[in-house]
């Protein structure tokens, strides 16, 4: 199933990306090579030999919306930009995106030649008599294949993010695995598993109730409920490792593992700390209002997950996948 979902994500991404780029090209969404009449406002327009001047590209919201055939721009456009002109009053311009930049230009800048910067040609410029402003005709650099460029960038970025996440785990993993090992040797984990045996026996009938896996499952769930994600992940991975020791078919998920993941992804929690922090940051008058609703929703999700895992594991197709294939036992052991 993960095979199909994974492939679905990738295929859909590529199809939609190509589709959007073709649509953009056909509709000329970014008005490539189309001249745009703007007012250039500057206190230091070039007089004589000066060739470089800073100022603002000015457009009313209506002009901007009409040009791109959109309706999203509500305020007049005042984009700071730098012009470089030559003698015959043509030249080029460049601007970096700031918070005043219209959304469409920001999107265009994402896949422009310079990151977050848009450039273009100045076709014609006519200065006013008092040199405070100029009428200019500009053409922005052509923007093409926005989505395909974004997909390429995302593929590389996220591959790096994955490695960063894994590297970030090394320290806390080592810390918690060390502490858990001490707790195991001291017999603390056994006490914990005995205490909760009546419940864990039902959830994980395949696992002996005093097995170290059960201890790690309990500690992981407790850490998740308290919102201690730094401690929860190492304990969860420890639990997976212990569960895997009882796995008859290495490389295939066991029933116990899936039940454990159902508890984990259900998101059972007592304090939704991150959501509450964001609520406080955006000015909520009652940040704790979501504690009850979150506990209820997460509880429903977790119970559904456990029940679903218990029902689905009885289906013949999932049962079959766990039966050990005696013909070629070596093949699966390589991982």
């Amino acid at each position, binding site marked *: 199933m993960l095979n199909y979902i994974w492939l679905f994500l990738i295929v859909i991404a590529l199809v939609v990306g190509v589709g959007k780029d073709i649509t953009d090209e056909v509709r000329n969404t970014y008005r490539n090579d189309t001249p745009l009449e703007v007012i250039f406002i500057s206190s230091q327009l070039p007089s004589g030999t000066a060739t470089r001047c800073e100022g603002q590209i000015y457009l009313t919201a209506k002009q901007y919306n009409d040009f791109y055939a959109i309706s999203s721009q509500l305020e007049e456009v005042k984009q700071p930009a730098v012009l470089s002109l030559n003698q015959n009053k043509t030249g080029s311009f460049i601007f970096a995106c700031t918070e005043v930049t219209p959304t469409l230009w920001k999107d265009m800048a994402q896949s422009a030649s310079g990151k977050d910067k848009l450039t273009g040609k100045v076709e014609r410029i006519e200065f006013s008599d008092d040199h405070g402003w100029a009428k200019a005709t500009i053409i922005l650099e052509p923007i093409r294949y926005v989505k395909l460029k974004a997909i390429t960038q995302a593929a590389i970025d*996220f591959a790096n993010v994955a490695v960063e996440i894994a590297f970030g785990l*090394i320290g806390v993993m080592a810390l918690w695995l060390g502490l858990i*090992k001490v707790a195991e040797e*001291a017999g603390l984990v056994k006490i914990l598993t005995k205490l909760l045996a009546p419940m864990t026996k039902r959830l994980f009938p395949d696992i002996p109730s005093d097995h170290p896996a059960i201890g790690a499952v309990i500690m992981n769930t407790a850490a998740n409920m308290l919102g201690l994600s730094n401690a929860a992940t190492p304990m969860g991975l420890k639990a997976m490792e212990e569960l895997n020791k009882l796995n008859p078919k*290495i490389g295939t998920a066991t029933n116990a593992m899936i039940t454990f993941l159902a508890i984990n*992804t259900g998101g059972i929690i007592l304090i939704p700390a991150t959501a509450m922090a964001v609520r406080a940051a955006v000015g909520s008058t009652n940040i704790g209002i979501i504690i009850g609703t979150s506990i*209820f*929703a997460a509880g429903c999700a977790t119970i559904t997950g456990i029940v679903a895992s218990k029902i689905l594991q009885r289906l013949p197709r999932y049962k079959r996948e766990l039966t050990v294939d005696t013909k070629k036992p070596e093949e699966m052991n390589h991982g």
Partner: protein
Amino acid sequence: MADLFRTVINFISILAIPVMIALFLGWGFFKKVRVYEVFVEGAKDGFHTAIRIIPYLVAMLFAIGIFRASGAMDVLISLITPLTNLIGMPPDTLPMALMRPLSGSGSLGIMTELMKVHGPDSFIGVLASTLYGSSETTFYILAVYFGSVNIKNTRHAVPVGLLADFAGILAAVFICRILFGK
């Protein structure tokens, strides 16, 4: 009542790790475990476990990453939006519900945006933060947990995770409508 609960849980969360360190090591010392050596022995596995998940995490995050970058999410949302009325869910919160199992940072951004636009204490704001607070990034957990033990055949783990997420969405909409219904 909710405030008291919050204070107590917060207090436990802050105390939990120092108490665990003290308890584990103290108990170990009391039981004559050679704590330093055993700690190091256990910690050794940390590196390998973390490194083992890299290929799984790369596969998962890159697929989700290009899915988000391509704008495919918008297409999916426009396809599903007509169905939100059936469960009484505001269409604005649909991106939140769909993004939550895929990406933690993506859904965090959507939740923040929704609360800024609609107000954190509006129905949409409360529902968005409940959806975020009550769920985990299912696909991330699948990749990391199964990756750490080299599980490639996940059997029914994905349907189970998605069913749980769907139930969580229904439950969040249900409880928020009852308590803060518009």
